[in-house]
């Protein structure tokens, strides 16, 4: 086991897969000579050369489509889109080509492409560099969506995504690339479908994904120390598909659910998890489920305004206390 940073975990996964399989390539803006905006491809250009570590022009739909076309013939591209805000420009190719080609060809073609991209609200990046887009990607049949919350997941999910024969979108976070965490030294893979229990508890389930797992864990500590409430934290690292069984199992245990999402509430992870709870275990509930989401506005620039958009530890604590009749 080694303590490494999130970006190092991504770099290690890509390096191992490129070394193993000459058809694995990576491409994106500034990922080669410049070493990658988030260092996820650091050193790979020197090791594998410009044919396999491709610095692309700023043409998101074009180079994503190019990667998809290459994947038709057995290439395994890992595309880095510098920010999910730019992934909007590549939506046509991701949705219309990658996600649908297996189906509309009657199973003849597949697009085993990986698209990595950081979303999230970082530090005063403004409305057009702070989008959270997981809600858009997770509603598309034929596209897998995973979102790692720590270096161990970043490594294991990327390894599996590269080898999986479906297209996989990996939703990363601008603020998490320097996060440290334990990653096993031996090679390992993570299931692309599922969820993880990030903290065991019995009184309420806090559902989070990506950065909001950490918000949930912080709130769980406060609940435990100050209010003697033991919250279970479920890490929904797979957003498409969501882990129905895992969600239901935790709610059956705690009978209360709070979903914490960094994105705006409409048509998002929170609404989906609530729907699943309704469908799977409605009569297990002791309180109406709650979702804590970002305000439904473009992300503002000023620091105080930016902070005002996101749910905070205190909001989570208050919501849980209210559910227990202590609000």
């Amino acid at each position, binding site marked *: 086991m080694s303590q490494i940073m999130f970006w190092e975990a991504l770099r290690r996964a890509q390096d191992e897969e490129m070394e193993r399989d000459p058809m694995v390539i990576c491409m994106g803006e500034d990922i080669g000579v410049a070493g990658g905006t988030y260092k996820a491809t650091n050193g790979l250009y020197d090791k594998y050369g410009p044919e396999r570590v*491709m610095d692309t022009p700023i043409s998101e739909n074009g180079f994503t*489509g190019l990667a998809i*076309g290459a994947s038709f013939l057995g*290439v395994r591209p890992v595309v880095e889109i510098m920010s999910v805000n730019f992934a909007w420009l590549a939506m046509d190719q991701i949705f219309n080509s990658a996600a649908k080609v297996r*189906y509309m060809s*009657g199973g003849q073609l597949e697009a085993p492409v990986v698209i990595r991209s950081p979303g999230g609200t970082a530090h005063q990046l403004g409305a057009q560099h702070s989008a959270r887009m997981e809600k858009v990607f997770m509603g598309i049949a034929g596209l897998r969506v995973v979102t790692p919350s720590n270096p161990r997941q970043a490594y294991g999910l990327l390894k599996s995504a590269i*080898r999986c024969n479906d297209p996989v979108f990996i939703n990363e976070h601008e603020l998490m690339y320097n996060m440290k965490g334990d990653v096993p030294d031996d*090679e390992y*893979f993570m299931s692309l479908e599922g969820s993880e229990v990030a903290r065991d508890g019995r009184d309420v389930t806090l559902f989070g994904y990506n950065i909001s797992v950490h918000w949930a864990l912080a709130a769980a500590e406060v609940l435990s120390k100050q209010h003697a409430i033991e919250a279970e934290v479920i890490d929904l690292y797979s957003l498409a598909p969501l882990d129905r069984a895992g969600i239901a199992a935790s709610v059956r245990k705690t009978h209360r659910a709070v979903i914490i999402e960094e994105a705006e509430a409409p048509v998002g992870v929170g609404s989906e998890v609530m729907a699943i709870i309704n469908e799977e275990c409605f009569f297990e509930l002791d309180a109406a489920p709650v979702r804590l989401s970002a305000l439904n506005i473009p992300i503002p620039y000023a620091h105080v305004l930016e902070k005002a958009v996101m749910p905070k530890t205190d909001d989570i604590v208050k919501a849980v206390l209210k559910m227990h009749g202590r609000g």
Partner: protein
Amino acid sequence: MEVSVKKRLLREMLFARRFEERCYEAYVERKIGGFLHLYPGEEACAHGVLEAARPGKDYVITGYRDHIHAIKCGSDPKAVMAELFGKETGCSKGRGGSMHIFDVEHRFMGGYALVGGPFPLAAGMAKAIQMKGDDDIAICFLGDAANNQGTFHESLNMAAVWKLPVLYVCENNLYGIGTRIDRSTAVIDQYKRACGYDMPAEQVDGQDVEVVYEAAKKAVDYVRSGKGPYFLELMTYRYRGHSMSDSNAYRQKDEERVWGARDPLVILRDRLVEAGEMTLDDFKDMDTEILENIENEIIKFSEESPDPNPAEVEKYVWAENDPYVHVGANGGAA
């Protein structure tokens, strides 16, 4: 071009014409649904280019006007028609339809229905070919109006930067859906636009299959030699509307007359007749034989084929039993 090749091409193009006309009838009979984009008038483009390439081996991709390109790549016309009929025996198992003909065995990599969508996919296939070190090439057929999409510029740029073995064929039929090119496009000659991406480009008559063949031969040889991409513009005309839901009201009668006089089948037929290589009766016999084949083999097969099973409607969305979806408890290699 040898006489035997000319005769075969005439036969193939006549078959293409009759196939598409029969699709029209089947659509009116409601045997075919959805959108249907037909190729009559443009036959010399697909046939001339692919005759100069290696159909079935080179990778071909196109838009939604795709039946004939697939057939020229080697697809069984029965499977193409059955696809239009929405049958399980269709080349895409009834999941694709007219706009999504696929036949990967013959390296026909699909028809795509977003205008301009195949530009980057073709560049990507060329990237894969380049990595594998094969001497195959990728060929992308699209219409003139697709060049007004961003993907045209993004893809030609990347293809040139990375010297990818891809031939872009522009079938310039003068209309983007129902809008004439001079009303939508600043530069009318499309080959000039490719020059902005530093690749050789040429514009030739797309109605004379021999002219198309000669120009394509040059283009294909260039791309196959590893020098990079090439852009070939073929001046052509489609007789029918953009799709079956198109009234065709935007056309001018004299324009139709001018292009009708330059029909690709008539040009090649008359050339063979004038050279004494065939008679008009030979041509009529060929036509009769083709019509009978379409009716007795292709339509019959499509009519009699089974529908897809609704119990299998969710098949082909995901890879089946992919080991990385659920890996072992220890996270070891699947």
